[in-house]
């Protein structure tokens, strides 16, 4: 049984996702000791990866989004994630967003358990500024959110069904947005995954097996810098005062991509 990680990187006008992916691939290899495949629309001979595959073309859901750490609207190219199921060269795949910084071996345990498909159910803001419900439920129906940031799957009938359902949701996104009462722009993989899992588990909200633990999230409004190997300082304003935290040897989801670019440029 082959095991490996896959990251998707499609550059936009504002963010060099391939650069982020190359940096993160080194972290993934160092902590998880698995081969890493890049799926990108700018394939090249990147030494950090064991495989580089061409990404399928974008669907109509190529949208723009405002991030707090970027002055202008940036193009958000997050469609087509369902294609990873057929593109991945591994029997068991860890699919990671490029802004998910691997700084521990926690996900190695998840990979070793070879789940049919598993992802995180909960995320939290390390600064404690973003409310729990805002991060973990979506739409006016308060649907439970399953995060597409980290998905571990083994090629199986169940995993294939989930990705096929995600494709169907992406193609008919406006209809699903109306049905589940959330905004149809921008397209969110998290929402598509959540709806797919909920549907395939018989609409029982508690029936989905998820990765234990929560995603430690550094939101766009928090400044993050690297202060050592696998050690990051996060600064943010709380009650009109500047606060800071040190995050050491733990995986973090850094939403402010420009801060990650700065970290890479300085490393």
């Amino acid at each position, binding site marked *: 049984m082959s095991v490996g990680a896959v990251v998707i990187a499609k550059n936009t006008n504002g963010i060099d996702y391939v650069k982020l992916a190359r940096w993160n691939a080194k972290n993934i290899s160092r902590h998880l000791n698995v081969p890493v495949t890049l799926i990108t629309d700018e394939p090249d001979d990147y030494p950090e990866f064991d495989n580089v595959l061409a990404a399928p073309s974008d669907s109509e859901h190529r949208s723009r989004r405002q991030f707090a750490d970027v002055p202008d609207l940036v193009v958000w190219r997050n469609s087509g994630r369902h294609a990873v199921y057929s593109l991945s060269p591994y029997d068991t795949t860890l699919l990671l967003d490029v802004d998910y910084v691997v700084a521990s071996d926690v996900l190695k345990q998840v990979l070793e358990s070879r789940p049919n498909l598993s992802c995180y159910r909960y995320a939290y803001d390390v600064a404690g500024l973003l409310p729990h419900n805002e991060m973990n439920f979506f739409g006016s129906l308060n649907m439970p959110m399953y995060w597409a940031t980290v998905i571990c799957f083994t090629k199986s009938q169940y995993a294939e069904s989930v990705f096929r359902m995600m494709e169907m949701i992406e193609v008919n996104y406006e209809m699903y947005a109306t049905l589940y009462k959330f905004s149809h722009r921008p397209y969110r993989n998290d929402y598509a995954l959540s709806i797919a899992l909920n549907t395939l588990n018989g609409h029982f909200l508690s029936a989905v097996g998820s*990765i234990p633990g929560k995603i430690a999230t550094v939101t766009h409004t928090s400044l993050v810098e690297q202060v050592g190997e696998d050690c990051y300082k996060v600064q943010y304003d709380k009650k009109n005062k500047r606060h800071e935290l040190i995050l050491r040897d733990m*995986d973090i989801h850094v939403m402010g991509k420009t801060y990650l670019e700065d970290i890479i440029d300085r490393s």
Partner: protein
Amino acid sequence: MSEKLISLAKARFDYESNKKVLKEKYEAKMTFASAGGLWKASPELLTTLLVCPDDEAVILDTYGTPIKVNVKELYAETQQRWQEQMNAWLVELNSK
């Protein structure tokens, strides 16, 4: 620029958030794979394994899947991971 630097230098350590982050961090590190299942080292799992009378037992892993396990082996793995991570948690909490 100098005002920004002063502001950054005056940043105060957030003990409240740090405590919560450490709890989430070490709870995640309690997770381990064994016998084809995924487990969370915890007093609950240790107690469950302690009350299993036979060498083998079928118990639910964190995915809710029934797994046949060797009770003594899983107990030893669980206790080791739980103790290691609790010790590390204490050390990191006290280092701030």
